[in-house]
């Protein structure tokens, strides 16, 4: 042990020796920064990739699953109510929505990783969706054959989707949200270590520069200045890219995902209103009708007026409260505002048919309203919500892509800049040492 220490002391006793010690310390600090910075940048990029390719899409797929199941159920009810001569358009919409829901279940399953709780929820949802489809088919078969019992199957199907499946999907949503949050929070751990190493390297470089200035009586050592600048660029780039990429993720979450969640909630609430209305029509259950009215109020607290639509379109506050009014508040571009205005118009058209349905004098007349304008206007509302969901999805995934793009060259830069800085620093010291030969 005493050998190396003695050699270091001996080295520190001469000016060239001190320069060699400084150059060693600076070299070690910069190489350490290169290694730690590259690891941090790679970790950051990998975590962001994971969010973009995995926990982000799984969040979207989970919300789209909610929307697809809602659409499937509204279409199944409408097809059922059309009687023995089934409405082929509603049946097509049902089949497409169910196929989409199954595809989204597969998407979630492939993206969810090894999360046991998520897989358990997913398995339950999958089983219940199969049960649900079986009940819809049983209702359909009874309906087409003109035998009684079909209505009971349909009510069971609606209840299964509205309670058990909705509960499991909500649990799945929470799990995927937590996972997104964990992935986002975990991104920056390596960057903090790299920032600490960068600070040490910067202090070392500045101290070395001061030492050189003191001993050589020259103001600046150009290669050492270049090294300091290169190192500062590397550290600055890492910090700024990390912050801006994090900002993109926050924006994606705030403007994209929160909008997706709100839109999916609008869709499932609208669906619940429609489903309860359908059950009330079939069973004449007034509690169901009340529940449908509650869901409608949750969407918007009163009749939508042309003034509300115009307010939503230009970005002024809507006079009503409810999820649709929340969506109007959240819309931050003319296109989004136009989309919300369309949702308001189309929801009110559906609400008007509910008024007609309730005023119809006979069960057959009520059923005719439900099957005709009721289904048509609800489809209009549903499609307008779905296209907003599509826009939100594009915005969210675009934000994740932006976050990823910010980090594109980061690992290479955090490796090459500190190594370049190390080379420049060593050159700077060597030039001074050479003056003593």
């Amino acid at each position, binding site marked *: 042990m005493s050998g190396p220490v003695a050699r270091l002391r001996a080295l520190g006793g001469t000016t060239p020796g001190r320069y060699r010690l400084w150059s060693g310390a600076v070299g070690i600090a910069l190489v350490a920064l290169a290694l730690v910075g590259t690891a941090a940048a790679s970790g950051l990029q990998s975590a962001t990739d994971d969010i973009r390719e995995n926990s982000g899409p799984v969040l979207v797929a989970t919300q789209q699953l909610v929307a697809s199941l809602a659409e499937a159920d509204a279409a199944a009810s409408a097809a059922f109510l059309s009687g023995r001569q089934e409405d*082929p358009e509603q049946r097509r919409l049902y089949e497409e929505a169910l196929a989409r829901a199954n595809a989204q279940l597969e998407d979630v399953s492939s993206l969810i990783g090894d999360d046991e709780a998520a897989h358990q929820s997913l398995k339950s949802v999958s089983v219940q969706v199969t049960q649900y489809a079986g009940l819809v088919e049983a209702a359909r078969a009874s309906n087409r054959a003109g035998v009684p019992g079909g209505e009971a199957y349909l009510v069971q199907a609606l209840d299964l989707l509205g309670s058990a499946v909705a509960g499991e999907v909500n649990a799945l949503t929470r799990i995927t949200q937590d996972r997104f949050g964990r992935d986002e929070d975990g991104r920056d751990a390596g960057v903090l270590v790299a920032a600490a190493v960068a600070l040490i390297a910067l202090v070392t470089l500045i101290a070395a520069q001061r030492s050189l200035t003191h001993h050589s009586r020259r103001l600046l050592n150009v290669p050492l200045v270049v090294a300091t600048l290169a190192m500062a660029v590397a550290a600055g780039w890492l910090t700024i890219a990390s912050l801006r990429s994090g900002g993109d993720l926050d924006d994606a979450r705030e403007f994209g995902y929160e909008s997706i969640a709100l839109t999916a909630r609008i869709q499932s609430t609208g669906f619940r209103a429609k489903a309860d209305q359908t059950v009330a029509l079939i069973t004449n259950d007034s509690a169901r009708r009340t529940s449908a009215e509650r869901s409608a109020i949750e969407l918007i607290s009163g009749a939508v007026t042309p003034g509300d639509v115009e307010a939503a379109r230009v970005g002024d506050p809507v006079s009503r409260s409810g999820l649709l009014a929340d969506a109007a508040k959240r819309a931050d571009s003319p*296109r989004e505002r136009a989309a919300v205005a369309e949702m308001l118009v189309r929801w009110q058209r559906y609400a008007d048919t509910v008024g007609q349905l309730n005023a119809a004098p006979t069960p057959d007349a009520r059923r005719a309203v439900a099957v005709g304008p009721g289904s048509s*206007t609800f*489809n209009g509302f549903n499609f307008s919500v779905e296209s907003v969901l599509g826009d939100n999805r594009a915005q969210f995934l675009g934000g994740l892509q932006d976050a990823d793009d910010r980090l594109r060259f980061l690992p290479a830069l955090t490796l090459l800049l500190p190594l370049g800085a190390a080379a420049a620093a060593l050159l700077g010291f060597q030039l001074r040492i050479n003056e003593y030969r």
Partner: protein
Amino acid sequence: MLTRRGFLGASAAVMAGAVLGCTRRDDERSLPTGFGDRSLRVLNWPDYIDADDGTTPGTVSRFSGETGVAVDYVEEYNGNEEAFADVFEPTLGQGDPTGYDVVVPTYWAVARLLDRGWLEQVPIERVPNHVNIDPAFLGMPWDRGARYHMPWQVGITGIAYNPALTGGREIRAVADLFDPTLRGRVGMVSEMRETVALVMLTQGADPSRATVRAAEAALDRLESSVGDGQIAGFTANEFVDALQDGSFAACLAWSGDIIQLQRARPDIRFVIPVEGGIRWFDSMVIPRGASNPAAAADWMNFVYDPANAARITEAVQYISPVLGVREELARAGGEAAQLASNPILFPDDETRRRLYFWSGLDADEEDRLQERFSSITG
């Protein structure tokens, strides 16, 4: 009589001439000049809008008058396949603009354009009348919510017949067209998707979930019917002449043409077959790179005003995809009000339930079916 579909069955020579004409004009206009930001170029099917009529300005003139946008309205969209070959592929396929701001292809062609990424989104923020799209057209699997297209007009392919030539017999089903008593006096339409879809319905297959196998089975039936002389021919709207001169006793036909024919020949009947009818529509789209999408949006908004849409319906007599048109026609009184109660123009819910869209096959599969269909029709 020449309508939106009149050009589909035109002879190859005429088509080639039209296409050449179109191509030359495209070449000349590949760099739109002259109108600046206040111009709009629309490519639509022939005679598919209300034209200026004496002192009454048509839709194009009224739009220009109200907005100050100069419209170059070109009626040279003569067929979807031709448009792909002569307009879309040479321009959009090379990353160049078409020179048009609005084009009106048939729905399946819109789906192909969208699939290739050749369409711009409709700027809905400039189209408040987007809310007037009939919900039936919002659920297309290739564009849910209609963000890339706005339907222009809708038609039904069903059966037209002359009761005097069927011996007073009512023709109610596509299957009736294969009755030997009508041998040699039956016509089919030259649009593959519609003829094949209607024959599929007679075989219990659903054309909105078309499969190659089911379509091939329909083509087999058509082939044998052509072979044994049951089918006299495949036409575009020449069926109008064939019904009038008696060469067709019954045929597949397009609703708008027959409604127009019924003004002069009220004895000619149009029915939606018991198996179901085929619904189709043409849709306004903004091709990628359009020079004035804002004016395109203003145009779309204008023609989606129910009052303006009603005037178009009155002229072309196809089904309008715009909500509120029926009420506008009823309000107008006279002949327009009669249209408001026409069950073909405004099918009730029960009728709508019997209408199918052709769907389910990819472009390659459809191309192969088209090839076989062409070999059968000759």
